[in-house]
């Protein structure tokens, strides 16, 4: 067992749970930044420094795009229905789901290791021996997938759907590393491009949602620049 790797995997899972379950947008974005920013360090062996740097920068940029979009988005109207955000079942339940996903993924990784070219693991009674690098990476990935499926495909607003999609894809990429080994550098860069694209699309959607809240008829602009033409006495957030 590599304790640092386990800690990193737990940080990814905790970030995912916070991102999915937080009701406050800024808290959710902090969780997202942690989940996306720490995930590149989850692997054994670690990728090349340049590839890892690209993944970290890509993750940070994706999270920053969402933060910028949320920052300039107008607040929800004081009256009228406000779409609820965050998980409907609460963070304790999401955390328990993640724990269940960890158990399943570690068992799965153990089974895969037994079928691998090195044959069955030698010490099957050592519980800590189950926490191989592949197992913890797969566990962090599966936990992310499990908690992100509902917000990604049944999210009630643009921010929730985007965060769910980012966590889901991050989980899929981690699970792929856990069960099939580390991918090549170009495939990792492909993952960065995908996360960035979802970040851009999410920022765009959040901007569009903000414009809908304002009810401006003249059209939409890119979210990152959407606040440029706001009057200086815009309603305080």
């Amino acid at each position, binding site marked *: 067992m590599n304790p640092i790797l386990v800690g990193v995997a737990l940080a990814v899972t905790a970030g995912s749970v916070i991102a999915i379950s937080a009701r406050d947008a800024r808290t959710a974005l902090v969780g997202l930044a942690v989940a996306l920013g720490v995930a590149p360090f989850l692997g054994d062996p670690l990728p090349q420094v340049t590839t890892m740097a690209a993944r970290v920068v890509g993750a940070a940029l994706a999270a920053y795009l969402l933060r910028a979009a949320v920052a300039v988005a107008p607040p929800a109207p004081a009256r009228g229905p406000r779409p609820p955000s965050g998980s409907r079942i609460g963070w304790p339940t999401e955390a328990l789901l993640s724990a269940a996903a960890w158990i399943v993924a570690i068992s799965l990784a153990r089974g895969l290791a037994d079928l691998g070219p090195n044959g069955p693991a030698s010490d099957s009674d050592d519980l800590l021996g189950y926490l191989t690098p592949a197992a913890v990476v797969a566990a962090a990935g599966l936990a992310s997938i499990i908690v992100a499926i509902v917000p990604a495909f049944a999210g009630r607003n643009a921010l929730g759907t985007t965060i769910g999609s980012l966590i889901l894809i991050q989980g899929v990429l981690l699970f792929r590393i856990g069960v099939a080994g580390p*991918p090549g550098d170009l495939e990792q860069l492909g993952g960065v491009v995908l996360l960035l694209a979802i970040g851009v699309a999410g920022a765009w959607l959040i901007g569009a949602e903000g414009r809908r809240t304002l009810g401006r008829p003249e059209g939409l602009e890119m979210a990152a620049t959407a606040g440029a033409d706001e009057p200086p006495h815009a309603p305080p957030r």
Partner: protein
Amino acid sequence: MSVLLLVAIALPGGVATALLAHRRRAAFAIGLLAALACIVVAASIRAEDTVPLAGSIIGGSDALRTLAVAWAFSTFLFGLMDALLGDGQSVLGPSLVGLGVGALGLSVADAGIGFAMLTAGAVLAAVLPIVMVRGGPSAAPGLGILSLRPVVAAGAITILAVAWGASAVGPLVAIGPLGEIDPALETSMGLALLAVTAAVVIRLGAIPAHVWTARFTEALPASAVPPLLGWGAAAFALVSLGWVDVTITSTGVDLGPQRAIVVVVATASIVLGGLAGILRDDIEHALAYSIVQDAGVALLAFASPGSASTSAGRDWIVAAVAVKSGLAAWVLVTRSTFRTHRRLDLGGWARRSPLLGLALLLVLIGAVGLPGMAAFDARADLVRLALPGPIGVLVLVTAFAPLVVLGRLLVSGVDAMAAPVREATNVAPRLRGRADGWADDPSPVRLVPAAIRANGRPLAAAAAVLVAFVGLAVAVSGLGSTVVGGASGGDQTGPGAAGVVAP
């Protein structure tokens, strides 16, 4: 090297175009120049062009050249039509990005890279054009979320399938030295086939995942359709087909029940898509349901094992997309010219605009096909291989629904003129006159732009003819049945990693 050059032009060009979308002229100028350069570079792709990049090999091929040239040409012409019609500056940017990542995804042998890249391009193509949604800003976020979900779902499913394929229990590793296959592996291969096919169903918008396709097509200008539901979806299907061919079909496992499920879904898309296209009255739904029907035929390539089916599937996917790009171009220009989208309100449209009539005629020939055309033969082969016997004949007949859908549109074009068609302005070319003051100043510097402004719609119709012609050309030639993917260039997924039109 040529593929990398194409990517190096398309990606920055697309990003710059998207960022400058609020400055129409600058966006179109940069985007159209980039698209033009992409056509030139795509035409220079050669099979011997291989470049190692970040642990993988980027390689060209004759098939990739055909696909990339048609894709880039379509991107350029749709950008040109949008510029002439004064709309759609939010489409060209994501289209170019989609072209760049699509070419990169198709040129590597590892399907994992292809799926990630193509999903990234599709995400942008699905969401960025929502600023042009009909119905105002209130409809934009909902449409964006509705379009984002299937794209993300399809990408996630396929990346997981690739992970399974390369894992210790996947066929690339788990098949014994003598080729013996464990029953559990056979079961998991069947599930993987269904999973990837489900992803293709979702991504292409086949029945039962067709709702988002119809919503997207009816809510946005038709120029937004080919980047997402046309070329991008075709590339996704090609990568999927290559992965299934190498990872599953090459093992020789029967998978009869699973392939039967695929046949049922494909048949439903062909039959119901054709019927829906006939029953609907507006031209956007004619486009949407013809795409659904084409997706059904493409799914048949996943239903029957063997190289004949794979080759026919490749030919059909590319030809269908190229032809339906022509239909999208016709829909775009027709709706913009006559300000209506109902067939009953379009009586006499071809008499007012013969160029549009020619465009739809070319689309009709490409969609229905003639014996000897690659698309026609590919469709017949796919149906015959997956559905032998009389049922196959019935399904094949249903697959000719475009003859009815497009044929009656053509007939209405020479019918009595409806009021919207009669009242439409700037339909015919203006070679003389004082439109927008273009005859006031004889200087070419002012004359040419003024003439282009005055003739925007006829020029857009001419561009639509070109798109339809390219579609017909691809339908005639296809990708070439000798194209064989699956050359392994990836070092991380083992021998037989999936490729599509890789070297």
